[in-house]
C-alpha cells in the first residue's frame, strides 16, 4: 500500500482527526430534541410518526398532538430520520439542541423526488424525458408478476392478461405496437440488469397449453419502485432495445440505520368470472335432430344415433338424450386457493444496507389440477467501504413450477356434448365423446385435466455485483458484472387412459433448456455544478452482454403401463423424435449521455448509443441511436414565481432514435434443416436449406418525438402530467411472405401445417401516435385523507407499409387477424353477415347452408356471390386505457379502490363461432335456442346445420371494452400505542378483492383473453383461452 497521501487526502485526514476529537469531548452530555411533525400541504399535525437518530436505535414517536421529545446522549451533529407511512422519509441535520423543530412531511404519492433512469438516477425536476412511476398504493396488489402492476397504473402502458392459467401470460405494450415480427415487449431492467422477457427461456418445448411468464420468478413483494421510460430521450440510452419502452424495476434494500423484519401473509379464494351458458343434454339432442333435418340427413342420423348409443353401451355408459346431462364447466371449475407468505428483513448501518427476503407463493388455478408455485429468495447488499468505494450486490434466486392446463381442455369443456357422462358405469372415465370420438379436441376434458401430466419447472438466478469508485471527487467509475441463469425442465405424460395418449400407447416427453446470460457494464460518470448555475452530468460507457441457450427434448411412446409416467422413458417401445439445440446471441455497446442544466431552469439531455448485435447480417451489425431532449422549468422564472397557485410548470420536448433487435439468432444466415427419411428400413438424415441468406439484415428503427408538460397546482396537491407523441418505425424486421414457388416453406420441419413461405428482411413501416394524461390529486389532507390518481391514454396505430407492393398479410389463415396497410395491427378480415336467409330470399353465402335459416352474408362487391373478395377489414385500434385509483385514510383505516377500463378494441369470439355452428356433433351455446325455424323466423340466429363451412364473420366479433373494479383493498393498521407493547412496529390487517366486478358486453369468459399469448399481430382471438378469475383475499402484514 501507498502511505504517502496525496494533498487532497491529507486535508480530509486532518478534518477527520479533528472531528474525532470533538466527538469524544461531547460524549457524555444528554440533550433533548423537541419538535412537531406536520404534513406540508395541510399543516395538519401527524400522530405516530417515528423519529429516529440515524445510525442508532434511539427513537420515539409523535403523540396525539404531533409533538415529540427525544432524549439522547448522542453527540452532535447527528441526523434525524423522520418516517411515516404515506409520506416521504425525511432527514434533518441537528447541530445543537435548538428551539422546538417544526418538521414538514411531504406525501409520498406526489411526484417522487428521485427517479431511476437508465444507468443512473435523477431528480424528478431535472428529468427531460417522459418517465412514469407506478404509484405506491398499487404496488402491493396480489399479482404474480411485475407487468401486471403496470395495468391501469401507468399512462401509456397497455397490459392484457391473456390467460387465466396461474403464472401465465401477460401482453405488454408501451405506447402502441412498434413491431410486427420482432416483438413488442418492453425491455425490463431489473436492478440494472436488462432483460428481454423472452417466454422461450422458460419453455423447453414440451408442455402444452399456455406458457409460463419468466418474469413471474420475481415476487412483486420485493419491488421498491417501477419506472417506465417512454420517450426516445429516456429510452435511447438502451439503444437497440429501447423502441418498445423500458421498465426499470428496483428491488427493496435496507435503509440507513434501520432494522426491521416484516412478515406478510395472505390467503385468497379465486373463482371463474363467468361460465358460458350452454345447452343441456335434452336441448342438445333436439338440436342434433334439427341439424340433420335441415341438412336433409335425418334418416342417416337415426342410424348414426343408433350406432352411437350402441357404441356408448359397448364402452359401458349410457347417453343422456333428454335430461340435464353433464355440465362440463361445473365439473372443471373450482374455488381455488392462493397463498402467499413473504418475509423480509431490512437492515442498515451508515456503511451497509442489507435487504433479505423470502417469498412463497402458491396459486391454484380455477381449473382443477392446475397451479403455480414459487419459492424465491433475494439478497440486496450495499456496502460503502469508504467514501470513495462502494460495493453493491443484488441477487435473486427462485424456483417456480406449474401444472399447466393442456391446450385442448377449455374448448373440450365447451364443445363436449352434455349427453356424454364423465364416468362410465364402472367408475372409470369415458375416454372420448362418441359423437366425433376420434377428434382429439373432444377428449373427455376432465379425464385429461386429471390424468395428463403437463408441468413446467424453472430455476432462475438473476444477480449482479457492482463496484463504484470515485476516481476524482466528480468522476465515478462503475463496473458491473451480472448473470441471469434460467434452467427449465418440462415433463409431459399422456397415459393410455386418456384420448390423447391412447393412439400412441402412452406418450412421455421430457424437455430441458439452460440459458446463461451474462452482462458486463463499465461506466464513467462525471458530475459537477459549476458556479452554482451550471449543472453537468456526463455518462460514458461500454457494455457487453451474451446469452447462450442449450436445450433438448427426449420422447417415447408405447408404454407397457402408465405406472412410471415420464420417469422411465426408456421403457417406451416406440422411439419418438428427439432433439437438441444450441443458440447464442451477443450485444456489444458504447453509450454516452450528457445532462446539462442551467440555473435548474433550462435542461438539455443528449444521448447516443452504438449497439453491435450478433443477430444481424455482416453488412449491418452496428446501429447508432441518438436522442436529444430539452426541458424548461418555467415556474422558476421570475415572472411566474409569484403565482401562488402554480407550484410546478415544466415543458418538455424530445426526439430520438431507438431500435428493436428481438429476432431469433441466425436469422440472417442460410440455415440447413434436418429431414428424415428411410431406405431399407434404415433411417437416413437429409439436409436442405431452411432460410435464405440475407447479409443486409439490420435494425428496426423507431424515431419518436414527444412533447410533454408537468404541472403542479396548490402546492402540488394537484399534479398533472401530459404527453403527446409520434413514433415512426421503419425498416421493420418483417417475415415477408414470398411466393410458395420459392420453396421457402416448411423451413420448420416440425410445423409445416400450411406454413407460408417467408423471408426475413427490413421492409415496411408503421406509426403510433397518442396522448397520455395523468392527474394526481390530494382531495382531502386532514384527518380524513383522500387521494386520487386518474390516468387516460390512447394510442393510434397504423401500418404504413408491408414492403414492396404488399397491402395485406394474413398471419394465420384459420384466424381472422390481418395485417393491412392503413389499418392497425390486430385488425380483422371477415365476411359481413346480413341476418338469416328468409324464405324466398336469394341465398348469399360461401357455405353449403343455403336453405332458409342459413346465414346470409353481404355481397360487398355486388357480383351476386360471396367470395373472398367480399371480406372486409375491421380496424381494431388499441383501446383507450383508463385507470382511476382512490385511496382513503382515516385513523388506522385505509381503503384503496382501483378501477381500470379499456374502451374500444375488438375481440373475435372463436368459442362462440363453434358453439353456434349447431352441428349436433359438438355442444352449442344457448343462443341456438333462438335459432331460425319455420315458427321462429324473426331472429338473427341461424338454424342448426350439420356440416357448415367455417366462415369467419363479423357476427363473432365483439367489443372488447370493459371496465373493471380491478382491486379494492381495505386495511386496518393497529395503533402503534397498542402494538408497541408487543414490540411490533406496525401491524396491518387487510381484505382485498381482485377483479371483483367486470362490466363488459363480451359474451365469452373474459374480454382480455387472447389465444395467441403475447403476440399482438393476432391478438384478440379467443379460442379456448384459460378463463380469467376473480379473487377475494385476506391478509396481515406485521413489522417488528
Amino acid at each position, binding site marked *: 500500500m501507498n502511505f504517502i497521501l496525496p494533498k487532497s487526502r491529507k486535508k480530509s485526514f486532518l478534518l477527520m482527526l479533528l472531528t474525532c476529537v470533538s466527538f469524544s469531548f461531547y460524549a457524555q452530555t444528554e440533550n433533548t430534541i423537541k419538535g412537531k411533525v406536520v404534513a406540508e400541504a395541510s399543516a395538519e399535525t401527524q400522530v405516530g410518526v417515528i423519529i429516529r437518530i440515524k445510525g442508532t436505535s434511539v427513537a420515539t414517536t409523535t403523540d396525539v398532538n404531533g409533538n415529540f421529545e427525544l432524549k439522547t446522549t448522542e453527540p452532535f451533529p447527528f441526523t434525524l430520520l423522520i418516517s411515516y407511512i404515506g409520506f416521504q422519509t425525511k432527514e434533518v441535520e441537528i447541530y445543537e439542541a435548538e428551539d422546538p423543530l417544526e418538521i414538514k412531511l411531504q406525501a409520498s404519492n406526489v411526484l417522487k423526488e428521485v427517479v431511476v433512469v437508465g444507468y443512473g438516477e435523477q431528480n424528478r425536476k431535472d428529468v427531460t424525458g417522459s418517465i412514469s412511476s407506478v404509484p405506491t398504493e398499487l404496488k402491493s396488489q396480489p399479482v404474480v408478476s411485475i407487468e401486471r402492476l403496470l395495468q391501469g397504473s401507468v399512462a401509456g402502458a397497455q397490459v392484457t392478461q391473456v390467460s387465466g392459467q396461474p403464472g401465465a401470460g401477460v401482453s405488454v405494450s408501451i405506447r402502441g405496437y412498434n413491431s410486427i415480427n420482432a416483438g413488442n415487449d418492453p425491455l425490463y431492467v431489473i436492478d440494472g440488469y436488462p432483460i428481454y422477457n423472452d417466454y422461450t427461456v422458460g419453455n423447453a418445448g414440451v408442455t402444452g397449453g399456455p406458457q409460463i411468464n419468466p418474469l413471474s420468478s420475481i415476487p412483486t413483494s420485493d419491488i421498491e419502485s417501477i419506472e417506465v421510460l417512454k420517450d426516445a430521450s429516456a429510452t435511447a440510452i438502451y439503444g437497440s432495445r429501447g423502441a418498445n419502452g423500458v421498465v426499470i424495476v428496483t428491488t427493496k434494500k435496507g435503509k440507513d440505520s434501520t432494522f426491521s423484519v416484516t412478515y406478510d401473509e395472505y390467503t385468497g379464494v379465486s373463482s371463474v368470472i363467468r361460465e358460458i351458458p350452454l345447452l343441456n343434454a335434452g336441448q342438445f339432442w333436439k338440436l342434433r335432430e334439427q341439424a340433420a333435418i335441415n341438412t336433409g340427413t335425418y334418416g342417416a342420423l337415426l342410424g348414426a344415433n343408433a350406432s352411437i348409443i350402441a357404441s356408448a353401451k359397448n364402452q359401458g355408459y349410457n347417453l343422456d338424450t333428454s335430461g340435464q346431462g353433464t355440465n362440463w364447466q361445473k365439473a372443471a371449475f373450482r374455488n381455488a386457493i392462493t397463498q402467499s407468505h413473504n418475509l423480509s428483513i431490512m437492515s442498515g448501518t451508515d456503511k451497509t444496507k442489507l435487504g433479505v427476503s423470502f417469498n412463497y407463493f402458491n396459486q391454484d388455478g380455477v381449473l382443477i389440477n392446475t397451479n403455480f408455485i414459487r419459492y424465491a429468495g433475494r439478497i440486496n447488499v450495499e456496502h460503502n467501504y469508504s467514501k470513495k468505494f462502494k460495493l453493491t450486490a443484488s441477487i435473486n434466486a427462485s424456483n417456480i413450477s406449474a401444472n399447466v392446463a393442456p391446450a385442448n381442455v377449455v374448448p373440450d369443456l365447451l364443445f363436449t356434448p352434455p349427453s356424454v357422462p364423465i364416468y362410465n358405469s364402472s367408475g372409470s372415465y369415458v375416454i372420448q365423446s362418441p359423437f366425433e370420438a376420434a377428434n382429439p379436441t373432444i377428449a373427455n376434458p376432465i379425464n385429461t385435466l386429471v390424468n395428463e401430466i403437463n408441468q413446467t419447472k424453472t430455476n432462475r438466478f438473476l444477480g449482479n455485483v457492482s463496484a463504484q469508485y470515485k476516481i476524482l471527487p466528480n468522476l465515478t467509475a462503475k463496473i458491473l458484472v451480472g448473470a441471469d441463469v434460467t434452467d427449465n425442465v418440462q415433463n409431459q405424460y399422456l397415459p393410455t387412459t386418456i384420448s390423447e395418449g391412447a*393412439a400412441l400407447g402412452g406418450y412421455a416427453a421430457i424437455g430441458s433448456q439452460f440459458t446463461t446470460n451474462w452482462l458486463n457494464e463499465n461506466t464513467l460518470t462525471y458530475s459537477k455544478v459549476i458556479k452554482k448555475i451550471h449543472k453537468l452530468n456526463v455518462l460514458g460507457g461500454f457494455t457487453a452482454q451474451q446469452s447462450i441457450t442449450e436445450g433438448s427434448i427426449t420422447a417415447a411412446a408405447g408404454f407397457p403401463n402408465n405406472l412410471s409416467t415420464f420417469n422411465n422413458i426408456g421403457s417406451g417401445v416406440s422411439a419418438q423424435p428427439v432433439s437438441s439445440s444450441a443458440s447464442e446471441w451477443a450485444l456489444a455497446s458504447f453509450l454516452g449521455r450528457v445532462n446539462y442544466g442551467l440555473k435548474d431552469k433550462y435542461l438539455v439531455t443528449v444521448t447516443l448509443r452504438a449497439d453491435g448485435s450478433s443477430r444481424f447480417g455482416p453488412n449491418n451489425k452496428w446501429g447508432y441511436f441518438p436522442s436529444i431532449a430539452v426541458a424548461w422549468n418555467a415556474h422558476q422564472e421570475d415572472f411566474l414565481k409569484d403565482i401562488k397557485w402554480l407550484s410546478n410548470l415544466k415543458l418538455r420536448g424530445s426526439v430520438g432514435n431507438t431500435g428493436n433487435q428481438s429476432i431469433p439468432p441466425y436469422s440472417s444466415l442460410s440455415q440447413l434443416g434436418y429431414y*428424415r427419411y428411410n431406405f431399407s428400413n434404415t433411417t437416413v438424415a437429409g439436409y*436442405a436449406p431452411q432460410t435464405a441468406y440475407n447479409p443486409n439484415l439490420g435494425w428496426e428503427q423507431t424515431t419518436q418525438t414527444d412533447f410533454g408538460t408537468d404541472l403542479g397546482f396548490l402546492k402540488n396537491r394537484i399534479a398533472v402530467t401530459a404527453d403527446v407523441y409520434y413514433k415512426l418505425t421503419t425498416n421493420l424486421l418483417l417475415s415477408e411472405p414470398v411466393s*410458395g414457388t*420459392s420453396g421457402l416453406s416448411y423451413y420448420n420441419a416440425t410445423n409445416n401445417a400450411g406454413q407460408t*413461405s417467408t423471408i426475413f428482411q427490413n421492409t415496411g413501416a408503421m406509426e403510433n401516435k397518442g396522448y397520455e394524461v395523468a392527474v394526481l390529486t390530494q382531495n382531502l389532507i386532514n384527518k380524513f385523507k383522500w387521494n386520487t390518481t386518474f390516468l387516460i391514454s390512447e394510442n393510434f396505430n397504423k401500418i404504413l407499409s408491408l414492403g*414492396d407492393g404488399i397491402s395485406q398479410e394474413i398471419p394465420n389463415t384459420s384466424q381472422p387477424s390481418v395485417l393491412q396497410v392503413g389499418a392497425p395491427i390486430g385488425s380483422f378480415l371477415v365476411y359481413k353477415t346480413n341476418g338469416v336467409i328468409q324464405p324466398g330470399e336469394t341465398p348469399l353465402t360461401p357455405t353449403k347452408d343455403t336453405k332458409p335459416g342459413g346465414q346470409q352474408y353481404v355481397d360487398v362487391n355486388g357480383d351476386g356471390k360471396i367470395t373472398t373478395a367480399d371480406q372486409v377489414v375491421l380496424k381494431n385500434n388499441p383501446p383507450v386505457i383508463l385507470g382511476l385509483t382512490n385511496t382513503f385514510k382515516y385513523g388506522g383505516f385505509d381503503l384503496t379502490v382501483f378501477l381500470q377500463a379499456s374502451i374500444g378494441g375488438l375481440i373475435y369470439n372463436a368459442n362462440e363461432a363453434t358453439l353456434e355452428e349447431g352441428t349436433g356433433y359438438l355442444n352449442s351455446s344457448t343462443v341456438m335456442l333462438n335459432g331460425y325455424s319455420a315458427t321462429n323466423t324473426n331472429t338473427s340466429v341461424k338454424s342448426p346445420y350439420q356440416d357448415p363451412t367455417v366462415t369467419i364473420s363479423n357476427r363473432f366479433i365483439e367489443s372488447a371494452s370493459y371496465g373493471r373494479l380491478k382491486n379494492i383493498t381495505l386495511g386496518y393498521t393497529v395503533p402503534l400505542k397498542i402494538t408497541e407493547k408487543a414490540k411490533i412496529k406496525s401491524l396491518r390487517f387487510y381484505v382485498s378483492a381482485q377483479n371483483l366486478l367486470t362490466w363488459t358486453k363480451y359474451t365469452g369468459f373474459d374480454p382480455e383473453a387472447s389465444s395467441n399469448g403475447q403476440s399482438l399481430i393476432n391478438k384478440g382471438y379467443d379460442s379456448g383461452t384459460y378463463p380469467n378469475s376473480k379473487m377475494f383475499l385476506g391478509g396481515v402484514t406485521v413489522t417488528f
Partner: protein
Amino acid sequence: MKNLKYVVFTTIAISTISCKKFLEETPQGIITTQNFYKTQSDAIAATDAVYFFLNAGGTGEQTLYNVLLSTGMDMATDDVDPGPGASNADVRSLSVLSTVSTNRTTFQLWQQHYAAIGMANVALAKIPGIAMDSTLKARLLGESKFLRALYYFNLVRLWGDVPLVLEYNPSAVTASDYAVARTPSTQVYAQIETDLTQAAAALPNSYSSPDVGRATKGAALALLAKVYLTTASLPLNITGNYQLAVNTALEAMSPADGGSGAFGYALQSNYANVFLPAFKNNSEHIFSAQFKSLSQGQGNNQNGRAIYNGVPGLSGSYAEQVRFYKNGSDNYFSIYKLYQPGDKRKRASFFTFYISPTNGKKYALPITNPAFPNDSTPFFSKAWDPNSTGITSESAANVAILRYAELLLIHAEAENEINGPDAVAYTSLNKVRNRAGLPDLTAGLTQAQFRDSLYLDRRLELVWEYQRWFDLIREKDASGNPIFTASLHAVGKNNAQPFRALYPIPQNELSANPKMTQNPGF
C-alpha cells in the same frame, strides 16, 4: 497516477472482448449453407432430403404420401369421404367439391410440392461442384431429377399451368426476387419428360441394402410411361403420346410380359401381399413412399385414420371413410359394391370388421338398412400393419406410388387407344384380372367397351392409392368427354363442375406473387 490503474483495468475489460469476433455468429446446433455441400456424404444428405415429403420423416405432420394427398385430394373423389373423425372444415369442404382459394389443405399441397422441388433444385445445383465418386454423383443427380419430375407431375395435374422453377437462387433476398409467372402445362410436361429421360439414363436398375427404396431406372421409365399416357389423355389430348407410353412401358416391363426391362418386375401372386409390410419393396413395387414402424414417428398415419374407433385396444380415428351414397333404391351404394363375386381385391382392400386385440371380439358398424341384412360398413385396409395394432398410427406399410400392376394397365390402356383392344392389350389387362381371381375379360370388345372395362379394373385395383382423382380428370366417356362431373354427380357430390377439375391457386400465393393468376371459376 494511482487512478491510472482503474483506467488500465477498464481498458483491459473492454479489450478482452474483441468486438468483431464477439458479434460473429457461429451456430453450433445448426449447419449453414456456407459450410455444407463439400463432401460426398453432404451430397447424399442433400439428395435424401428430397425424399422427405414422401413420408414426413417423423414430424407427425401430414405430408404428401402420408395422409395429405388423401385429405387434400382423395377425399374429393367418388371413392372416399372424410369420416366422423375428420373434423377439419377445409377437408370437409374439399370432399364435397366446394373448395375455395383459402383452403389450407390444398395450400399445404402447393407449399409442400414446391418445398420438395426447392430441395431438388438445391441438390441439382450444389452436387455437380462436389468432388466425389462420379457414378454416385450421376445417380444422386438422377434421383433428384426423378423426384422433381414426380412432384411437378402432381402439380401440373392438380393446378394446370404452374410456375416452372428449376434453379436454386441463393442471392434472392426480396419478395420480388421470387415472383414467377405460370408456365404452360405443355412446357411443364416437357421438363418432366426431360428430367425423367435423364434420370432413366443415370439411375441403376436396382439397389441392395441399405439403399432399397431409392429411385431406379425402372421407376423413371414407368413414371415416364404414365406421363405420356396422361398427356395423351384429357385435357391435353396429345394422342400421339399413346405410342410413347406403350414404348416406354415396354422398356420397363419384364420380358415375361412382352417387355424388355431388366428390372425383375412381376405381380405378387397374392394381391393382399402387395401392401403388407412383411412383403414391402417386393417384385411388384416400382416406387413407393417408405415407412418405418416405431421409429421416431416415421409410421404411416393413414392406418389409424381408417380404423373404426369403437374397438377396445385398437385406437383409430375413423377419419377416412368409404364413400357411401344414395343411388336410387340402393341406399348404400359405393365402390365396395362394384367388386364382382370372387374378386380377391375386395377382401384385401377392405375390412368389414375388426377383432379387438384385447378381448378378441369382432367389432363392426352394422348397416341399418334392412335391404342389406348382416352387412357391415367397410373400412379401407391397405395401410394395415398387423404388427402395430398397439400404436395404429405407426404402420410400417409403404404407400405404392408406382407398382407393376399399374404399369400393365398403362400399357393395356395405351395399346387400346392406338390399336383397339388387340391381343397385347388383353394380355396386360388379363394379367391384372387373373391375379385378382377374375377370369379373362370378355373377348371381342370394342375399343370403348374395353376402355370402360379397363377403367373399372383400374379403379378397383388402385382404390385408396391416391390415383382416383387423377383418373377422374384424365378419363373420357364414349364420346370423348370427361367423366369427371358425371362420375361425381353419380355418387351425390353434386357440387362437381368441370372447372373444379383444377384446384384454385391458393390465396396466399396470389397475394405473395404478383405474377400469379387464378384458375377460372374461382
